[in-house]
């Protein structure tokens, strides 16, 4: 482990060193280009694409020019207004103005700065600036390249050649441009935004547009880890603990029982294999939020299960499936089997058929019984092949919102837990409550970062331990 960590630090170190080296050479190159370049190149430093247009490479030149104009227009007309306030997130609060109406004087609300939009569009503007600098650098490099090409007496590629290369040599740019942009705007930007929110006091008391919020540094993180009366520390570790326990049981119980069911159906001599499979898979067909909500009501104190048990006289008082914390946790894990086994059964069925039959044959000749064959052949094979699948299942279960939210809603709550968390809340369901019910966005952002940390640690940690990663040929 030590060595690995050392390696990691070394890698990070060289990474940083390389980065600075790269910046250094880049700056040097920009200087050289300016010093050695002709006047067209030098004008291009200010008016992007000028050199390319003068050298008759119109498509590129105009492209650069359009980007520059669009960028300046964006900055002047929209971006700067927001970006200039990003340090304070706005200073003018809401106030009331009085107007005279037919019903007498009346106070009308006039909004001030909107911290939310300042942060959001401020970040967007910063990202655009970085992007612009990158394009500007391309523009400089392009000039340099064209000059060198001309010096060597070669021809600059024509517009037509440029465009047709987009369908061939540069097809990756064509295919990836749109998806990358989409991910950037609708995934990267929001994530950066929410990470920033973790360092502000944006919550129910500081709600845009009526109120301003501002930067508070690491206050939210210290609240998460403080154990005082108002701190989230005790609750956070309890929720985290249950999240891990849940993910463990939900993953491995489903895995083994699902595999057992698959083996059972695959057993020689069992007829109607397709029927059994269809019956199990039917549960997947009903949307989870309907079936789980129904099952949740079924197990309620006044639900179907309890009232039938009472009617038949099997119990004298109701079984508190959802109101007792421990029982609620067990019930959730058990009901999750109902959801998870069909999936696992489908996957396992496919894989089991792939195990080479001669392995079993030779084992049988050696006199192995069914159990030995399972533990020596089936299980190792399955674990090897499904290692990465198990890992994704595990991280998926860490964030399994539906099952928890629909079955117990995170409850029962307790005086021992703060921040409206309940005994069966996972970090994600807690995060959801904070966002939607409590509008406590700052703590939601902090918990979101924690969810990320937990997922990342588990994934990276386990990934390197997987047999199929260590030894790709292991089962050949």
């Amino acid at each position, binding site marked *: 482990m030590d060595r690995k960590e050392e390696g990691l630090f070394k890698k990070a170190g060289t990474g940083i060193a390389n980065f600075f080296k790269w910046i250094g050479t880049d700056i040097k190159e920009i200087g050289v280009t300016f010093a050695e370049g002709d006047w067209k190149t030098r004008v291009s430093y200010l008016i992007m694409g000028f050199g390319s247009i003068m050298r008759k490479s119109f498509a590129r030149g105009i492209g650069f020019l359009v980007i520059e104009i669009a960028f300046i227009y964006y900055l002047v007309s929209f971006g700067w207004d927001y970006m200039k306030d990003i340090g304070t997130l706005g200073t003018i609060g809401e106030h009331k103005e009085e107007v005279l109406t037919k019903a007498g004087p009346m106070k009308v609300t006039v909004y001030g700065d909107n911290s939310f*939009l300042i942060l*959001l569009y401020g970040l967007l503007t910063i990202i655009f600036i970085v992007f612009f600098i990158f394009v500007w650098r391309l523009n400089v490099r392009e000039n340099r390249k064209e000059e060198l090409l001309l010096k060597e007496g070669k021809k600059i590629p024509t517009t037509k050649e440029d465009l047709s290369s987009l*369908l*061939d*040599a540069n*097809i*990756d740019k064509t*295919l*990836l441009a*749109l*998806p*990358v942009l*989409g991910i950037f*705007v*609708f*995934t990267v*930007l*929001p*994530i950066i935004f*929410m990470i920033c929110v973790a360092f502000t006091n944006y919550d129910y008391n500081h709600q845009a547009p009526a109120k301003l919020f501002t930067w508070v540094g690491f206050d939210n993180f210290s609240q998460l880890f403080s154990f005082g009366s108002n701190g989230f520390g005790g609750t956070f570790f309890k929720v985290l603990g249950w999240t891990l326990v849940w993910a463990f049981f939900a993953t491995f119980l489903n895995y083994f029982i699902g595999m057992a*069911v698959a083996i*059972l159906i695959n057993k020689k*001599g069992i007829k109607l294999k397709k029927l059994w*499979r269809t*019956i*199990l*898979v*039917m*549960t997947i*067909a*009903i*949307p*989870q*939020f*309907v*079936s789980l*909500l*129904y099952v949740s009501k079924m197990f*309620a104190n006044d639900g*179907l299960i309890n*009232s*039938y048990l009472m*009617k038949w006289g099997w119990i004298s008082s109701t079984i508190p499936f959802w109101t007792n914390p421990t029982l609620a946790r067990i019930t959730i894990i058990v009901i999750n089997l*109902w959801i998870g086994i069909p999936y696992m059964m489908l996957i396992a069925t496919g894989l089991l058929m792939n195990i080479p039959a001669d392995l079993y044959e030779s084992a049988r000749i050696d006199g192995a019984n069914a159990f030995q064959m399972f533990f020596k052949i089936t299980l190792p094979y399955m674990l090897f092949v499904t290692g990465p699948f198990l890992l994704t299942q595990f*991280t998926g279960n860490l*964030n399994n*919102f539906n099952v928890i939210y629909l079955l117990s809603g995170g409850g029962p709550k307790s005086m021992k837990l703060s921040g409206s968390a309940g005994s069966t809340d996972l*970090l*994600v369901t807690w*995060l*959801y409550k904070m*966002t*939607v019910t409590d509008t406590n*966005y700052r703590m*939601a952002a902090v918990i*979101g970062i924690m*969810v*990320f940390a937990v*997922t*990342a640690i588990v994934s990276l940690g386990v990934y390197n331990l997987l047999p199929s990663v260590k030894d790709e040929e292991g089962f050949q």
Partner: protein
Amino acid sequence: MAKEPKLHKQHKKLGNAIAYIVLVLISIIWLFPFVCIVLQSFRSYDTELGGMVDYLVPKHFSLDNYKWLFSGDSQFVRWYLNTLIIALCVAVLQTIIVLCVSYALSRTRFRMRRALMNTWLILGMFPGFLTMICLYFLLKQFHLTQEGAIPGLILIAVASCGMGYYVCKGFFDTIPKSLDEAARIDGASKMRIFLTMIIPLSKPIVIYTALTAFIAPWCDYIFASYVAFGYSDSYNVAVALYRWVNTSDYQGFLPDSVPGACWWQFLSRFCLWHCSGIM
């Protein structure tokens, strides 16, 4: 010596009997809630109210719930169409994007390729709900909330789907590169190879991608209700069902119609699965 096979046979018979018993038990457990939901859908709202009851078989069978669902009183038909539009658009667009991304990552090598894949991997580790409020306001800026919630939901689903390239890229990786090379020698461009060779070879993965994309919108109630709030014309089926099942105690409560609605979903999914040969 002659006894042993017989003993073995009996042993096997016993084993099979136990297996059948287990299978029947499992089937009962798995079908029970399903049957309950179906039975409940035939309960009459007028005489037995809408809520949870402590008996299984309805006292009066009626088709009221189904009638109500498709009558003008409920907006169910509209919500169903909304969902269908979303699901179809998402299925088509998402399939195109995932195919493009997978092909680019599988068959081309460019400088930022590893970095791009690693970044997407890391982005995938952030919980989706974290960014919900931010996405809402982003969409709102483009007028894609409330009245515009349907295109908005399509946009959100399609915008980030490139990150789910894993399965499809894995499939492309298994198509031998020698095919590409042969085509290159014949002078085909990469685009041509992609469109005329790779895609026809990957029918199963196209169906898989389209199906998973098609099914997801039917279950999205959290984000869909967050984006469409206060504008019932933009609800999808899931939002509507969830509201029926889970309305606060100030309002009426009609879960009986939920199973009716479910049937439609169930049928559409079931047909799709059968067509695609998953089952």
